[in-house]
């Protein structure tokens, strides 16, 4: 039984993340009065990319070649280390929230280096903007996780997910503030509106896309999949850490299935919110974004101050 649960835990993130991106695109299309691509379209895209050939620039070094693998493996590892649908899997080895933050930073590091490696104009400034936003978002990220850690008295993510729901009820207001702060950071780190438009064609407005302009074939598939995984991981952290309702407390077929279903519903709600946000606001000018991240930081600082 435990083996099956572990298998699901490891496979769930890469399996379901393209579906999340597909659902966001479908909802946005519907709101634009179109039919839109099917929700399984990202799977087809990835499959096709894996079967294409590649062209690699002669200026690129081994960092360009290795970056997609590292970025993707990091997202796999983190996806398996966070609570998705269970809270009884104790993970004292890689389940620390600071490890999650800095492991995701490894992914950003290699992504930015991959963008710089090719020496084109777009990759360079894509990396510059990405590192600027990531540096500022990391403060908000650690702070919102710190709020939850202080409420629960531990920085181990599984222990937080295992906590009593009434504990969070006592600290409802700080939790909500940190929830909002985390949403801002989520949008920053997953390159969504108002930080970045994932569907833009104008290189001057790209942040995440600019760094992967030069990738093709399998490496591009890995990079795209890694960005879907990152979206899924942030959504999972968002819905499971702040409101750990519906996680399976004990192993058993009923509880596990209920856990997975409730988790999917929560993720769907998060996805719906992101799609609605993307359909109703425009992308911000780049130098307004640090103000937004500062707002997230202040929200979280207030939340911490309100605890006890």
């Amino acid at each position: 039984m435990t083996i099956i649960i572990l298998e699901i835990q490891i496979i769930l993130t890469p399996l379901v993340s393209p579906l999340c991106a597909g659902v966001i695109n479908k909802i946005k299309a519907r709101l634009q009065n179109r039919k839109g691509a099917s929700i399984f379209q990202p799977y087809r895209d990835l499959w096709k990319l894996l079967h294409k050939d590649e062209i690699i620039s002669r200026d690129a070094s081994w960092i360009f070649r290795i970056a997609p693998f590292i970025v993707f493996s990091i997202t796999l590892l983190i996806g398996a280390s966070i609570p998705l649908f269970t809270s009884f899997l104790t993970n004292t080895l890689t389940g620390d929230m600071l490890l999650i933050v800095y492991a995701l930073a490894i992914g950003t590091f290699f992504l930015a280096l991959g963008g710089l490696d090719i020496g084109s104009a777009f990759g360079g400034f894509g990396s510059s903007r990405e590192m600027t936003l990531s540096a500022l978002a990391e403060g908000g990220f650690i702070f919102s996780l710190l709020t939850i850690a202080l409420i629960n008295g531990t920085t181990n993510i599984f222990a937080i997910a295992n906590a009593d729901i009434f504990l969070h009820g006592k600290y409802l207001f700080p939790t909500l503030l940190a929830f909002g702060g985390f949403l801002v950071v989520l949008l920053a780190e997953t390159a969504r509106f108002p930080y970045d438009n994932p569907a833009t064609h104008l290189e001057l407005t790209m942040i995440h896309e600019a760094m992967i302009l030069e990738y093709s074939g399998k490496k591009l598939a890995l990079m795209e999949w890694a960005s879907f995984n990152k979206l899924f991981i942030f959504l999972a952290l968002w819905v499971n850490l702040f409101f750990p309702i519906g996680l399976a407390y004990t192993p058993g077929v009923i509880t596990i299935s209920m856990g997975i279903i409730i988790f999917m519903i929560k993720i769907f709600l998060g996805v719906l919110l992101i799609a609605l946000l993307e359909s109703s606001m425009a992308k911000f000018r780049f130098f307004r974004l640090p103000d937004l991240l500062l707002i997230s930081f202040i929200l979280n600082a207030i939340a911490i101050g309100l605890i006890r």
Partner: protein
Amino acid sequence: MLEIITSPISFFILLSLFFVGAIGSLLLRKDDDSANIWSNFFAIAGSLWGLLFSVATIISEHTAAFLVNGSPFPLLSFSFNIDLLSAFFIFIISLIALFCSIYAVGYVRHYYQKYNIGALGFFYNFFILGILLVLTASNGIFFLIGWEIMSVASFFMVIYDRDDQENVKAGFLYLVMTYIGTAFIVVAFLLLYKFIGSFDFVTIKSGVALLPIGAKNIIFLAALIGFGVKAGIIPLHIWLPAAHPAAPSHISALMSGVMIKTGIFMMMRLFLDILQPIPIWWGIVVLIIGIISSLLGVLYALTEHDIKRLLAYHSIENIGIILLGLGSALIFSSLSMPALAFLSLVAALFHTLNHAIFKSLLFLGAGSVINQMHTRNMEEYGGLIKYMPQTAFFFLIGSMAISALPPFNGFFSEWLTFQSLFQGIAILDSSMRWLFILAVGALAFTGGLALACFVKAFGSIFLARPRSTEVTHAKESPRSMLIGMGALAMLSFLFGIFSSQTVSLLEKIGRSFDVLQKIPETILVSNSQGLMIENSFSSVSGLTFLLSLVGALIVVAIIIDLIINRSQKIKIGATWDCGTDLNPRMEITSTGFARSIVVIFKGILKPSIQHTIDYSDSESRYLPRTRTVSLGVGDVYKSYFYQPILTMITSLSMRVKNIQSGNTNIYVLYILIALLVSLFSIL
């Protein structure tokens, strides 16, 4: 066996190895090659002996306190006290000096026929000797002798490359700042002597109750300023970005990795050991200094395009992080929470060790690059990864370590610092809580900004296409330099994986402090898997992370490369350039990379842009010939801090100068007044 290794005789052998290396190098100064080999051989031998000595002392806990008779003055006694803290710092210096000396064998060849290699070897060995004396002296005047040896030797090495006038100016600034610091240290020691009656540290420690509160606070401030100048805290840091780039690279590595840590060492010794019990505001001041230094250090580093100045500012940032740990240790110890103080101290000690390793690695890498490129300006690099692949790999590991990316060592010491600050937020009450919240914010932002800075540094130096033709002539460094760097990179990796074993040794050092002796329950537990904080059940394991990452990489690589679409063809083509030719001017520059962050923080950094336009026709202004844009960062410290002090001192001196009127009659009047005053005071 361990008795012999940790005995005083062994320590004197250690000192004499460096002494012989110094004198012999000076005697061999006519022959560059033999002076180089002699000085580095003895430095390597001394470092190996020092490693053996310090590790044996820490493991066996045989501390030694001994005295050498025969001092010519009654106040000066050649007394040594090698306790666990000193042994730890001796370990750090031996480790770094070992690899810097191995590196120097190949690096110094660059200076043959230009300067005197024998003199370099002489000062290098005396520098290490001075540091060893500073770390083990137990008498204030003896300590100052060692401090002087260290400062003077490093001054001569900073101005070693004296063809460049900038280096000489930097050396002068370094000398002035060091002596200002030494003056404050002397004030602190003199005050201690006045109230307790001895320069001996052991006597001072037992007699600390004799100090009145006012004097104790003044001693704290004097010691903070004095040792802070050496450590490079803001605003006393102005010598660091000037002096560290000027020195030869292995000296910069030693200065940045070890010498500034002697300031931290004495702060730990004085504030946590000798002057206990301490008021709480001392810890608050140190914590605030840590917050400011870490944030401002990394922000200034982002504005730099000189590679060694960038690394020097990162040293300031990491000293700030160490002071965050030290400050919280001081706060917890004055609030009688020894378990938490222990945690913070262990975090500070671990970060000291880690910073020494990865900073030296980065400086040695920078030195290799500068050797080949003959310029420190990062804007002229680019694409070096194809010409210097091993150096690039080691620099990458150093960059990942300093940005606190797991599984390297920087992550674990920052994790411990975070945990100690979290505990502070959880346990303390409201006024102190906000200080710790600010500290966590500073640490979080520092980590992110350091990551951005090293993407910029690594990307500008090694990636993309060459920005100047010098790059195409670059060759990989000689083998001794690669061995030095490679060993440090391996250590950075190993200390990260085996962080729990390292921390358990550091716990011994922490427990050797009197104030941390009685800990009701241990909070920090390091088991075989990883680090764990007991009362909040947080844990992290480097080895597991590494193994799972490698496992995931292998699985992904196998599935993607070998299983799916084996018939894929990979072609090498040109970069997609939108149809135009790409020239190196189109790549992003290191200044451009960081410009967004500089503009975001323009309140702190005060960036300035100056345009100068040279027109073809001076009458009309339609046809510019050249246009120069200078981007600068406002120098806040000189204008708001040092310039007013300088102006005040100068104006005071001008007023006092009026006493010297040159008129002999006035001087006779002065003698008469002095005689009258002394007569009246006796009567």
